[in-house]
């Protein structure tokens, strides 16, 4: 009788445990969403799109560059405290340019850069790129004049147009070396590596890189990295003042894909990256750079490791356009798989990825955010991302979204 009771109790516990686990699993499936707050970018500043140009200033405001195809791009500022927007730069107004269509200053595409004195740097490029059918860049006295470099000082509210960096080419990429006071961009379409000296106001052109990296990464030695020709990462070393091509040696499963998003790790020893359609999160090991073991067409090599699949639930591929290094040292990026936008987190200590959920807009369950283009992180770990106007069902307005203190403190792992 006593044994029967014990057996009954065990069975009962097992049953309820099973029910509990099923419930938990169902709950997990149901609640696999991550909410963000949405702040639409004012309509006057864009026509629905924008790219990597988003960064937080030292004043705590979010600076966003827009795309306004065929017209004038804007640099706008979002104050998270008042939740109000200001128009900082109207590219055509300040440059006195009147180009339309392909000839307009239609995009602030390059990453917004923040200097140690709080000055904001932004650069424009052409929109509606059509380099094959209309390849007269660099030659025509009319046409697109070339991307301008601007600085904005939030303390004085003064905008300075530092001029066109390269005749009839747009400006993309963007990294800042605050110690040397240099800004690094590349020109589109000729992919020339450009160095702007903030102190001297001079520009140097180191020639073509062979690649079009939307994100570039800079380490604490001031070395700048970007995607070069296929299978190659270029590196600019300010100590030697040279641009190098490093062939990528892949370690781990899968095939190497040229990265789209690149961020430097917290300890400056790695670059975390993801690619459009890439199956894995990439870790470039900066300690592995060597110049002795090089392929014929490069200066050296760098090791890239695949540790974790980039998609949710082991799904491979997907559209990975935006990413940022969180304050917790993890790499946060979006991955759109089957038109569903997931927010992903890569933990470099555990070498694992985690899906934080399908991105949903708070109080707007009818909206379907789709493609993020650019991200930035605040000192408290809050992450802002920029979503273009797209999506199935009701169209999401071109907005920045906020994940409050998402990357603050220690990471809690579900796996």
């Amino acid at each position, binding site marked *: 009788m006593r044994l029967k009771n014990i057996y009954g109790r065990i069975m009962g516990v097992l049953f309820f445990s099973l029910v509990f686990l099923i419930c938990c699993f169902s709950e997990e499936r149901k609640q696999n969403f991550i909410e963000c707050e949405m702040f639409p970018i004012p309509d006057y500043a864009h026509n629905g799109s924008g790219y990597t140009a988003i960064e937080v200033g030292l004043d705590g405001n979010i600076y966003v560059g827009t795309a306004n195809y065929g017209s004038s791009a804007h640099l706008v500022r979002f104050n998270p405290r008042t939740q109000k927007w200001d128009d900082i730069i109207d590219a055509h107004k300040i440059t006195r340019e009147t180009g339309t269509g392909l000839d307009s200053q239609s995009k602030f595409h390059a990453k917004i850069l923040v200097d140690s004195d709080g000055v904001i740097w932004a650069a424009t490029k052409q929109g509606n790129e059509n*380099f*094959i059918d209309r*390849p*007269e*860049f*660099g*030659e025509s006295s009319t046409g697109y004049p070339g991307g301008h470099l601007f600085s904005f000082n939030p303390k004085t509210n003064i905008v300075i147009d530092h001029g066109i960096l*390269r*005749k*009839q080419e747009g400006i993309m990429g963007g990294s800042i070396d605050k110690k040397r006071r240099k800004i690094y961009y590349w020109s589109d*379409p*000729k992919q020339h590596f450009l160095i702007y000296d903030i102190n001297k106001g001079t520009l140097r052109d*180191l*020639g*073509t*890189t*062979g690649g079009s990296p939307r994100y570039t990464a800079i380490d604490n030695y001031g070395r700048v990295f970007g995607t070069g*020709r296929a299978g190659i990462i270029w590196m600019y070393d300010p100590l030697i003042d040279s*641009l190098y091509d490093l062939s990528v040696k892949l370690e781990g499963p899968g095939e190497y894909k040229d990265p789209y998003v690149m961020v430097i790790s917290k300890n400056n020893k790695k670059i975390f990256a993801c690619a459009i359609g890439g199956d894995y999160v990439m870790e470039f090991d900066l300690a592995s750079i060597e110049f002795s073991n090089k392929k*014929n*067409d*490069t200066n050296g090599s760098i090791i890239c490791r695949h540790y974790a699949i980039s998609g949710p639930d082991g799904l491979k591929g997907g559209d990975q356009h935006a990413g940022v290094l969180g304050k917790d040292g993890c790499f946060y990026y979006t991955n759109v798989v089957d038109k569903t936008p997931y927010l992903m987190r890569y933990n470099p200590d555990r070498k694992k990825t985690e899906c934080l959920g399908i991105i949903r807009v708070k109080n707007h369950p009818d909206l379907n955010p789709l493609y993020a283009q650019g991200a930035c992180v605040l000192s408290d770990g809050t992450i802002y991302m920029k979503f273009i106007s797209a999506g199935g069902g009701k169209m999401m307005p071109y907005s920045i979204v906020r994940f409050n203190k998402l990357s603050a403190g220690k990471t809690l792992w579900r796996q």
Partner: protein
Amino acid sequence: MNKKKNITNLFCLMIFSFFVCLNTFAAGSLNFSLKIVNIPFPPYQRNITKLVNTGNGTIYGIIPENPFSKGDILLIDGTDNIVRINKFSNDTLQVDSVIFNQNITWTWDKTLTKIITLDAFGVLKVYEKDGTEKEIGMISGTRPYEKNGYQISRAFAVDNEGNLYTAGKDGFLFRYNPQTRKLDKLNLQLPAVKGREAWATLDAAAISEDGKIYLGTFDGYIVEFNPISETMINLGKPLRQQRIQALACVDNIIFGIGGEHDGLPRWFIYNPSTRNFEIGGTLKTQDNKLILEPVNTLLVTSGNKIYGSFSGRLGNLFLIEITERKK
């Protein structure tokens, strides 16, 4: 009477037009296509700034490093093997401060024992095998409204006698005979867009089988120069853009690439027998990618292959094949 004269004029015009059309159709429009083959070879060569032909089947490529007094040399031998070397062959004069300096225009004389240069100050010099250098004379002049700086010619042309030609102040041609060391200013002026005569410089040259020299100017004109009669015919501007980047003569047709340094290279062909230009357009690699870098030299080998070198950080060697399309 006037009416009769008008009818006669009209008749003459019709006859003239008929023969013009007949001539055009008889000659046929040129119809060439281009195949550009990227040459991969170890070690990867970047930024070849000049290819030079020694005339004995050897081609040297110059790859300067900063600060322009040192660099690498590549060698293409008669069997198209390409290797990196440190020195020209012993019988060929090498002056590192000249050959690796991109601001100096230079060439050898036909014995390869003298190097003739045009420097940024517009001064012609000759470097001898015994290590001496001698100033021949100043040929360039200051541009209008500018106190300093010269736009010097980027090429020397050479005739069948070994005389060298380049352009100096206001585009006037100068002839230098390395044997007699005589420098002559010819009464021939390179064409330029009106008002830009001071910028008329010689940027490229190629000699045809009949000894005529084809010159390319900074403003993008092509000129036929007869060194024997010392006459010049302006053939016009094949491209809207400035600059003739390089010229080569293959099978007695003139193949050229032009366009501005920051722009795109475009190719053209001039056929001296029909006096026609064919404009080829932009250059594309075999995988249909636009070539963005300018060309600095085109050289024709004895096997009628054209080697081209493209400037820029990732510029490398190309083999250019011109094929006549079947009509």
